[in-house]
């Protein structure tokens, strides 16, 4: 009798439990077109992965939404249409996301790469500097001129971290390696990116890396017969001869997790900063242009990172002026990494200084 009662109770409780779970309707706000073959494309791959989950009813997106105050209108527009998980994928959406979230306390908002959290606004990002370090190792081994080039978007911590990790990775295998940086002041402008890459090629750089949304840098390097690293997603088709590999994003890992938590009602706004061990970031496949011994070296280092036995910002690290910023045996705390505003020794470039 007890068993039957329990079975009946379970039978009744089951649909109720299902009822407590919500269907996820997600909306993504993108800064570029989904066909940019870079940043937005990578996010859209993640969205598609999330859309496959059975409890995700809808996963829509709006592309090429300009950063700045007017993004609030688009974000509010999707919130009003009943989406319960809104993901804004560029730093410039920070204030508008926070502002709109105030009016929709029951909607979960996720903002990529920012620092403002609210009860229903979480931030998320990944430690792309880990694969950046690995790609730096490859560049340091492959270079002949010992001059590496880096086409960089904006002098903000996210980009600066990547450049420093790349330089440290290169120096870890080749102490003579230096990194020359050119700022483009744009995320997505293939013409500007390409001419920045060409200027680096003209000053002896024989391996180019980039922090941009398009693969224009790779095309410039390929044309000049030099090596290049991608970013965001694997980009072998843009440099059949000179492409080495790319630090890549697998946003799907994070988006699936967020959708699951919203579905189960366990989602809480936090400041998520996931590492290579979660899979959100990784080093994409290394091409035949990377020598086998280098591949082995990089693969071993990647394993150490995943195991947590190696930190990419381990002292001693000196800044451009030669001052020690991370003493021997110490690692840079996350807090410091998040607001990094200096280059390490061996990086040739400038960052505007802040008024004290």
């Amino acid at each position, binding site marked *: 009798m007890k068993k039957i009662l329990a079975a009946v109770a379970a039978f009744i409780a089951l649909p109720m439990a299902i009822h407590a779970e919500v269907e996820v309707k997600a909306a993504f706000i993108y800064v570029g077109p989904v066909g940019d073959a870079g940043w937005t494309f990578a996010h859209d791959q993640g969205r598609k992965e999330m859309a496959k989950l059975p409890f995700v009813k809808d996963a829509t997106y709006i592309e090429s939404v*300009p950063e700045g105050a007017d993004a609030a209108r688009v974000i509010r527009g999707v919130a009003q249409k009943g989406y319960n998980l809104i993901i804004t994928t560029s730093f410039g959406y920070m204030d508008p996301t926070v502002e709109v979230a105030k009016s929709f306390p029951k909607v979960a908002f996720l903002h990529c790469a920012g620092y403002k959290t609210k009860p229903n606004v979480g931030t998320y990002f990944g430690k792309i500097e880990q694969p950046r370090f690995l790609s730096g190792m490859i560049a340091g081994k492959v270079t002949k001129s010992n001059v590496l080039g880096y086409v960089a978007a904006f002098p903000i*911590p996210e980009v600066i971290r990547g450049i420093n990790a790349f330089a440290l990775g290169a120096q870890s295998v080749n102490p003579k390696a230096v990194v020359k940086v050119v700022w483009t002041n744009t995320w997505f402008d293939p013409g500007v990116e390409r001419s920045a890459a060409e200027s680096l090629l003209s000053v002896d750089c024989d391996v180019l890396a980039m922090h941009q949304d398009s693969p224009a840098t790779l095309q410039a390097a390929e044309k000049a017969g030099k090596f290049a690293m991608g970013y965001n997603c694997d980009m072998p088709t843009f440099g059949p001869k000179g492409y080495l590999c790319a630090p890549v994003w697998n946003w799907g890992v994070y988006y699936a997790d967020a959708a699951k938590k919203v579905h189960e009602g366990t989602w809480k706004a936090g400041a998520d900063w996931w590492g290579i061990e979660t899979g959100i970031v990784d080093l994409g496949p290394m091409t035949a242009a990377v020598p086998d011994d280098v591949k082995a070296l990089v693969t071993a280092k990647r394993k150490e990172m995943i195991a947590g036995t190696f930190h990419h910002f381990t002292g001693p690290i000196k800044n451009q002026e030669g001052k020690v910023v991370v003493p021997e045996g110490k690692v840079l705390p996350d807090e410091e990494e998040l607001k990094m505003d200096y280059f390490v020794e061996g990086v040739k470039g400038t960052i505007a200084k802040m008024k004290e």
Partner: protein
Amino acid sequence: MKLLIQKRQSQSALFNLMTPLLCLVLALIVVALFLVMAGVNPFAAYRDVGIEALGSAYGLSETLVQATPLIFTGLGVMLAFRMQLWNIGAEGQLYMGALGATWVALFSGITSTWLMIPMMMIMAMILGGIWAAIAGALKARYRVNEVIITLLLNYIAAGIVKYLVYGGWRDPKGYGFPQTADFPPNAILSTYFDTRLHSGFWISLVLAAILWVFTEKTVWGYELRVIGNNPRAAQYAGMNIQSKTIFVMFLSGALAALAGFAQVSGVVTRLQDNISPGYGFTAVIVAWLARRSAAGVVIVSFFFGIVYVGGDALKITYKLPESFINVFQGMLLFFLLASEYFVNHRITLVREPKTPVAV
């Protein structure tokens, strides 16, 4: 057969009103064809555009938020155009205004609530005014083309703002991201209910009214037009063209600068480098379509507000790509500007007598 194009001598008021409306309808028909090709029902799409921009309190407020900076910059450009001074540097003047207002809000040491907003406005007007007066002075003194100077100063102004927000003016608590600290509460214009509509909108309307009176009802406004239409006659009549060129450019820039003030103080509440999606450039079209009238600037700005906000409806509801929105907005502009041509010119088809063709 050939086309004969003549300048119209006079137009009736009805004709003046009907031509742009007809062109607007034509534009909507052409865009409808594109919508059909994109698999969207054009009637539903236009209804949604209307609802998004006008149909709700929030939509209407957003339309006015977009119209506000267009009114400020449109008035500035309109004033210069009246004297046939082609100021196309409203975007740069907007940025200089934003810079002046930000300096007062964050770095001047002013704390008084009563002084804060007025000082921000004054500083914005001074900086934006000087920015435009540079072109005015070069024009008056050395006959340098003001189109080129105002255009190029746009990029310099945007560059200065970029330099500051990436450098010395960066928020020390902002993790190094390129923007200044938030303004103190007394440097932020009040907003209404749960919308982004701010009191800068009323300021723009008051200014439009003042400018309407000055340009239409005063000797000063009359002189502007005389100098613009016939500088030599103006000189014989004893008007000082040089000083007026500089002064009008100053005023033009000062008005456009208030758009920058309104954006940082009313909408963004801090300075960053993407405070304007090109209001200052749209202002040139606004002033032109408004036929250089202050009242017209308000009406046309409101229309552009609808276009901006309505475009987002197409994006949100139908997931049309950004490039489609650009086509939509571009088509409207193209037809409206074409209508200007037909208002001012008469085009007739002249049938030539047939000449026999030798076999």
